[in-house]
Every structure is written in C-alpha cells, then in structure tokens.
C-alpha cells in the first residue's frame, strides 16, 4: 500500500501509541523498506524506532541488556559482548549491520535471523511494552507466538555465558553475507547443553532431542553426530534458493559437531 505516514517517536510510550494505531514497527528498515519500495507493505503507516531511545547497551554484573533498536554493528562493537562478535559477522554485511537491529532480527523469517538463534540459546528475556503496560517474556515465546498487537520489544536481556561455554557455527553458501544453511548456537554448563538451531525451521528452534542426548556426556565426534541425528526430530526444514530441506537435514549432524569440535575428526 502507499505509505501515508512515517512516525519517528522519541519515547517508548510514543512508540506504543503509534504502534497501537496500526503502524508497522521498523527498526533499521532492512526488512520493512524492501516491502515499502516494492509496494507490498500491508500497512499505510510506519513507526521507526530510530529515535525512540531504545538503542542502549548495558553490560554489568554478568547480565547484558540490549535495546531492541541497537544495531547489530553496535552490539558487535561493544566490548562487553565480544563473544557475540563472530556470530554477528556472519550476518549480512557491515553496511547492513549498521542498520539492522536486535529487535528486528527476532522477527525476520529463517534462514535469516541468526542473532535470534543466539538469543534463544542464551535463553534471553524480552522486555515488552504495550497498551496494557510492560511485561517480560522468554525470547522462545516471542519467537514462537510473537507479540500482541500494539506491543513492542523494548530490550532483550540475558546472562553472559561463562568463558569457554559459548559455541556458534553457521554454515553458509559463501564466506560472508549469506543466509544460513544451518546455524548452531549453544551455551554449555556443567554437562548441560542449551542448543538453538537456525536455518532448519521457519523460526529458530531448540534442539531439545540433542540436548537430552548430550546431557552429562562428553562432547566427542560420535556423541555429537548422534545428537545431530536426534535433532532431526526437532526441526522442520524447508526448501529455498540456498538449499533444500533434504540438504539442511542431511548436514545438520555435521554442523552440530563442527559447532563444538571445529577441527574434528
């Protein structure tokens, strides 16, 4: 539809007001503006988060709180979030990372949205604001059921993983600037594994079958391959221009293993 208004509210409350009136939320515009430019946006009003004061990043006491309008570049440059830097560098290009936002990444369809996969593995919490006030929700819920009309994700919050417990691996069609074939993000703690997968279902998913199988077991090529095969129960892969559903499922065990043991066997 033809856009009739672009709101650039300067507070979260103002964002909620505009959003509640039916405006489409827009972080960096990397998802919304292609729709606008091709005339296929299903709305007439946009609500930009660029000036809403939602782009702060705070890391203290082992907890990171990232404003939903923070750009991927800003996250990647934050000294307290260095563990995420390799993951962020697999997303799009530096130019697009100057625009794309953390909040926006939660709502892009797979095989895009690798940061959302990371946040799922980190068991992040979303801080939401809406007409009914503020609330919190696990990122898993936001990824599966979305948010209510008029609501906006204000920030995401997660505990920083202990050193050496964070694993990330993304299989791509080219070295840079490619969507995912398989994305694996994981936090391990004391034999307990939280594993999130991207590229393998319409939304990021937890590889619960793999997590169950690995619990308490050492990470070996064999256990990981077994876990990767088990994880096929957790996915709902699709065909696209990058790869077929068959291929994604076929190489899942390989990439799950490489996420933890890059050099093996």
């Amino acid at each position, binding site marked *: 539809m033809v856009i*009739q208004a672009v709101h650039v509210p300067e507070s979260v409350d103002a964002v909620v007001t505009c959003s509640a009136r039916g405006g489409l939320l827009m972080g960096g515009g990397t998802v919304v503006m*292609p729709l606008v430019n091709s005339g296929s946006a299903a709305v007439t009003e946009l609500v930009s988060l660029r000036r809403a004061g939602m782009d702060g990043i705070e890391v203290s006491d082992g907890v990171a709180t990232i404003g939903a309008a923070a750009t991927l570049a800003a996250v990647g440059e934050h000294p307290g979030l260095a563990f995420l830097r390799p993951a962020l560098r697999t997303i799009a290009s*530096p*130019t697009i990372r100057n625009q794309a936002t953390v909040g926006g990444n939660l709502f892009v369809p797979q095989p895009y949205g690798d940061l959302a996969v990371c946040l799922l593995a980190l068991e992040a919490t979303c801080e939401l604001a809406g007409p009914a006030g503020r609330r919190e929700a696990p990122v898993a819920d936001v990824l599966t059921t979305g948010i209510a009309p008029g609501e906006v994700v204000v920030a995401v919050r997660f505990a920083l993983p202990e050193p050496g417990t964070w694993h990330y691996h993304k299989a791509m069609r080219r070295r840079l600037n490619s969507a995912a074939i398989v994305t694996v993000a994981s936090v391990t703690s004391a034999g307990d594994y939280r594993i999130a997968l991207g590229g393998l279902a319409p939304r990021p998913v937890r590889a619960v079958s793999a997590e169950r199988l690995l619990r308490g077991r050492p990470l070996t090529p064999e256990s990981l391959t077994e876990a990767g095969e088990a994880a096929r129960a957790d996915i709902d892969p699709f065909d696209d221009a990058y790869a077929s559903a068959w291929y994604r499922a076929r190489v899942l065990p390989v990439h799950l293993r490489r996420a933890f043991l890059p050099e093996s066997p």
Partner: protein
Amino acid sequence: MPSQIVSLDVNGERREFIAAPGATLLACLRESLGLTAAKRGCAQGACGTCTVLVDGRPEAACLVAVETVAGSAIRTLEGVATGGDLDEVQSAFIDCFATQCGFCTPGMIMVAEALLDRDPDPSEADVIEAISGNVCRCTGYRPIVIAILEAARRRRERAVTR
C-alpha cells in the same frame, strides 16, 4: 500525513526539501537534491550501490525512510572530491582499473571511505569484509580490493608527508 519538509546536512551543506511519506533517502538524494551518484540497483538493501554515509557510517540509502534521519549528516560520492581534486580512493580506482560498467563504483567508494576513515591500515580481509554487501558483476572484485588497499597506502603516505 502530507508530505513534509526534511532537513539534512548533505556533504557539509544544509539542504531542505519536501519528501512524501515513506520516501527513501536514496530517492530524496537523487530526485529532490539532484545527487545521482548513489544508484538504485535493487531497492532491497542487497546490492550496495546506493551506499552513503549517515553520520559517518555506511548505510544502504534505499532502506532509510528519510524522515528517520532528519538532521543527520549525509555524505555522498559527490562530496568526496574536493574542488575537483580526486581523493586517494577515487584515483586508486582509476589507476587500478577497478571500474568497468561503473554502476557499483559509487557504493564501493563510499564503503571504502568509511573503512579508511576508521582504519587507515586495513588488512585485505578487512577490505573484503567491508565490501561484502556490494555487488559487482563485472570485475570479479579483485581489482576493487587492490584499489582500496592502494588508496589506503596512498592516504598513509600523504599523512606522513604532511
């Protein structure tokens, strides 16, 4: 909401113009301000030829609703050569035969400008990552990477001699 007056600092000059709701920064630069160096290659943020600097950072101008950057400092390729003198990136692109059809060149140069502003001595890997969102269909990229590294060298040399 009707069209509104938007004000930008473009290449160091304050420019005001009327923009329709949802107009992109790219459309405003090209159509309202007559700055046609930035090109429309896809309007999807995926080709990079519309890249301009917004407050010093490269952004795809086709993805920027212009209202959202009102008041920002925009730098386009028109603002790179000063007084008709080409800068190091521009002259290196010529000398290294890094242009063929020329359609990707404006975006490539703006990405390079931002890179060299931040890092005067980038590695080849840095250059490659910087241009990884810019599509070139003619050259196979190698001459462009060489040109940006050469530009960095020339800029460092100039900084020493000054």
